[in-house]
């Protein structure tokens, strides 16, 4: 455990030495990078030794704080969240060396690194904390460091706005967590996390609802996702990767940890999560499809994937309510594995999107095009990430979704119960998968294929090796989980055993989840692809690429005639218009000899822009009205308040 503490300290303070360096010197960033790498290595070592020993590790130190002790606890559940964290933090910091170098960003480079270290350390702390106060501290430091990461480029209005919304959302969530931990400490008698599976169900309704709000806000479950798209788009890419890949997962961690504490789970908890998961998944991906800003789009995919994770967790909760060990095992394994997977491929996608943005200088997909020729490595890595996030074999996304699918099929075996409705998760997942695929065809196609759509894209350059290598590492991790999922079985089984408690746990290796077969199919697919591809490549290698694309009879095709992101998404977005309310501009072609026409679409966030902003504006107006009435400047009126108070209190007294 001392290694873990060391890791936390090193990571947290990694940005501090940089503060004492000159604004444009390399020293600070190198030291920060080194410290972070050492810190994550220490943490990784601590987690690995704990996992290998097979026993949970504990550390408890006294702390002069009312109700607080410095209590850390490492178990497979925490390890599941920590392992991808270490990888993503480490890759991100290396990537950041070239993506956000100090000498190019003298004003905000130090700030970015300071808070990058702080958020990483805080996340390690909260994932391993087993004391309420310690957890909340880690939580809020993470949240605030996240705010400063998002507002790295605070001179931009849009960035400030995103940061503001984020800060409000996260603080609202934190306040709910205050109440949650207050109630928990009342139920269990102390601020330490109670022993798993001991809390009674009585009085847990409010606790669960508060947890759902607080943790769901951080995770970005629809309709609490309001802060997410703007925030992820505004942050520098490796920070976005961290936020999307790791930070939002702490919300899931909170839900998993919270539900592990209870002895019995009411069925409606599972149903609620399942429903929210389905809504997040479908609406998240539909909104993603309608976006044309690559980082916003990826951010909405985070909402989608959180939805998938929530579906898995919902199924696992249902399994505990109905005492179905297989359902628990499949649901939770799918949930946790998807947490890892999403962390990996989403970071990969954000990093590669970052190197595209770095090269082109825009976030609009329609300004890219033809980049695969100019950035072959970035393009190939992005393609890998796209395949993985679309849950296609042989990458890791498929494995976790496959587990959740299997979970969704389990209720069919139990005919009598009301559980049958849970099978709806399967078609929902199918729809999500189909839409995600469409979306990534759009992103990859419009960004990397075809002809450049702007001058900047035509002159784009490949990212330096220091940016490519971290991405390659992430893709390798994706492929590893996709092809050798069985290597993660001990971790997942440990987490399942630790979570499911009295339901009795089923181990994943059983016949109901033959990961070995999937692995075999993955290898088979890969082999066939390589063999066929190699043969085709050998035959076509010598062929010159010297003709123009067939223009269907049109003589002078230009790059502007390519399908744009708006037109690509249009046919699908139109199907979801009932929930998206996209704004379509143009697109009508009038008359026989039509003049120049154009089409573009723009999709504001359904919850934020359509519901919350008007509501907030109304409240603010009401407040201002009340204010002007109450504090009206007349001393006489103020004295009236004094009299009224006296009279009211005297009345209270005599009654």
């Amino acid at each position, binding site marked *: 455990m001392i290694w873990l503490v060391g890791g936390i300290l090193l990571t947290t303070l990694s940005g501090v030495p940089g503060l004492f360096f000159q604004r444009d010197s390399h020293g600070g960033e190198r030291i920060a990078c080194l410290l972070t790498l050492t810190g994550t290595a220490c943490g990784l070592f601590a987690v690995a030794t704990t996992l290998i020993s097979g026993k949970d590790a504990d550390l408890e130190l006294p702390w002069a704080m009312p109700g607080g002790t410095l209590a850390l606890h490492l178990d497979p559940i925490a390890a599941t969240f920590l392992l991808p964290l270490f990888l993503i933090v480490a890759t991100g910091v290396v990537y950041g060396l070239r993506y956000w170098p100090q000498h190019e960003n003298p004003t905000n480079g130090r700030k970015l690194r300071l808070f990058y270290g702080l958020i990483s350390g805080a996340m390690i702390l909260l994932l391993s904390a087993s004391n309420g106060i310690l957890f909340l501290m880690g939580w809020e430091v993470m949240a605030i460091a996240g705010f400063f990461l998002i507002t790295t480029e605070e001179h931009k209005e849009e960035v400030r706005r995103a940061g503001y919304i984020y800060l409000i959302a996260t603080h609202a969530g934190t306040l709910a967590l205050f109440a949650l931990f207050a109630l928990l400490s009342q139920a269990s008698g102390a601020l330490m996390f109670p022993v798993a599976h001991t809390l009674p169900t009585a009085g847990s309704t409010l606790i669960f609802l508060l947890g759902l709000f607080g943790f769901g806000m951080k995770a970005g479950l629809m309709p609490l996702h309001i802060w997410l798209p703007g925030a992820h788009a505004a942050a520098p890419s490796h920070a976005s990767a961290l936020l999307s890949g790791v930070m939002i997962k702490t919300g899931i961690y909170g839900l998993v940890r919270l539900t592990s504490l209870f002895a019995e789970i009411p069925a409606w908890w599972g149903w609620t999560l399942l429903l929210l998961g389905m809504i997040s998944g479908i609406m998240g991906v539909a909104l993603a499809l309608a976006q044309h800003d690559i980082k916003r789009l990826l951010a909405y995919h985070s909402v989608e994937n959180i939805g998938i994770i929530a579906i898995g967790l919902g199924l696992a909760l249902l399994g505990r309510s109905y005492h179905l060990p297989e359902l628990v095992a499949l649901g939770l394994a799918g949930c946790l594995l998807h947490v890892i997977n999403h962390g990996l491929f989403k970071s990969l996608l954000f990093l590669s999107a970052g190197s595209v943005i770095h090269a082109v200088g825009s976030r609009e997909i329609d300004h890219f095009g033809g980049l695969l020729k100019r950035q072959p490595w970035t393009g190939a890595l992005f393609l890998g990430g796209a395949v993985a996030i679309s849950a296609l074999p042989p990458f890791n996304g498929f494995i976790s979704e496959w587990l959740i699918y299997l979970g969704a099929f389990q209720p069919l075996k139990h005919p009598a119960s009301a559980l049958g409705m849970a099978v709806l998760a399967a078609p929902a997942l199918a729809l999500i998968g189909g839409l995600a695929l469409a979306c990534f065809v759009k992103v990859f*196609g419009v960004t990397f294929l075809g002809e450049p759509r702007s001058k900047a894209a035509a002159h784009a350059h490949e990212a330096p090796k220091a940016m490519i290598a971290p991405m390659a590492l992430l893709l390798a991790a994706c492929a590893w989980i996709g092809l050798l999922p069985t290597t993660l079985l001990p971790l997942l089984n440990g987490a399942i055993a630790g979570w499911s408690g009295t339901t009795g746990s089923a181990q994943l290796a059983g016949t109901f989840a033959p990961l070995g077969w999937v692995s075999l199919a993955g290898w088979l697919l890969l082999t066939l692809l390589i063999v066929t*591809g190699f043969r085709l490549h050998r035959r076509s290698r010598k062929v010159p690429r010297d003709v123009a694309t067939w223009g269907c009879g049109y003589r002078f095709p230009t790059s502007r005639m390519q399908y744009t992101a708006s037109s690509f998404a249009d046919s699908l977005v139109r199907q979801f218009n009932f929930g998206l309310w996209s704004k379509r501009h143009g697109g009508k072609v009038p008359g026989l000899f039509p003049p120049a026409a154009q089409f573009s679409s723009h999709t504001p966030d359904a919850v934020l822009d359509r519901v919350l902003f008007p509501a907030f504006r109304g409240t603010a107006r009401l407040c201002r009205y009340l204010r002007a009435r109450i504090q009206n400047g007349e001393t006489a009126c103020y004295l009236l308040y004094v009299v009224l108070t006296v009279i009211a209190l005297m009345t209270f007294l005599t009654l």
Partner: protein
Amino acid sequence: MIGRLALSLISHLILLLLFAPLLQGVITKTKSIFGGRIGPPLLQPYYDLARLFRKEFIFSRTTTWVFLAGPVVGLVVPLLAALLIPFGGLPAPISFEGDLILFIYLFGLSRFFTAVAALDTGSSFEGMGAVREVTFSCLAEPTVLFALLVLARLSDGLSLNALLGPHLLDAWHSEAGASLGLILVCLFVVLLVENSRIPFDDPDTHLELTMIHEVMVLDHSGPALGMILYGAALKMMVLGALLVRLALPWQTGWWLSDALLFLGGLSGMAVLIGVVESTMARLLLPRVPQVLIGTSLLAVFALVLVLR
């Protein structure tokens, strides 16, 4: 054990590789007969493929290696998928719990790469085709899942072998028969969508604006085009196998009779497709999603019937 596996593997592959293009021939022949023409010979698809594989490549200067990934994945995926699905009474060589999900997602993979390869050319027409392909498939996907849920409800396993086992015969006679009928219709619609047939797409049209699948492969040539066509034929046979097994759940236990029954069923299906293509007009493009959503609702209805 190994021997039986190898035998089953080889017989599956032989049936698949040999018989797949014939279905195209049967459909074309049926349509010709309906049109009052003699039409091309039944084996015409084979001749086409052979000729294409002999031809040389032509590549647009816009394209990259992704352009070739389309045909590769398009060919490999049905091959692998075929190993997961029973051909009539012949059980699938590779079978495990949950292989049905892999089956569906494999086709997702092929769709991804076909669409991406189309976008690689930078042609607006091919982009249009890619959009339509991914749109319609993603609307069709829930239907398949609902159908599989119905089948999973009736069986006691989660592999395609178990789902399409001999118990289907009893199921047709039980209360679940109605559901099976419904999902048969649904799956037929999905088959038409996935294989780009009328009324959703017209493989023989000559106007790029109205094409879906064909427009995506406009720029492919030579062996790559051959691979695409062959892959499409394999895909139709693999998806057809699902349908045929559902419609004709008899099983004799003899290899030859089972294989013949299966091939007969497939031919029947091909004729049916030909009949549909000859008697129906193409749907307006905006109507297609509505039809697909309607189909999903039918499938939901079937699921509700068996869950009741």
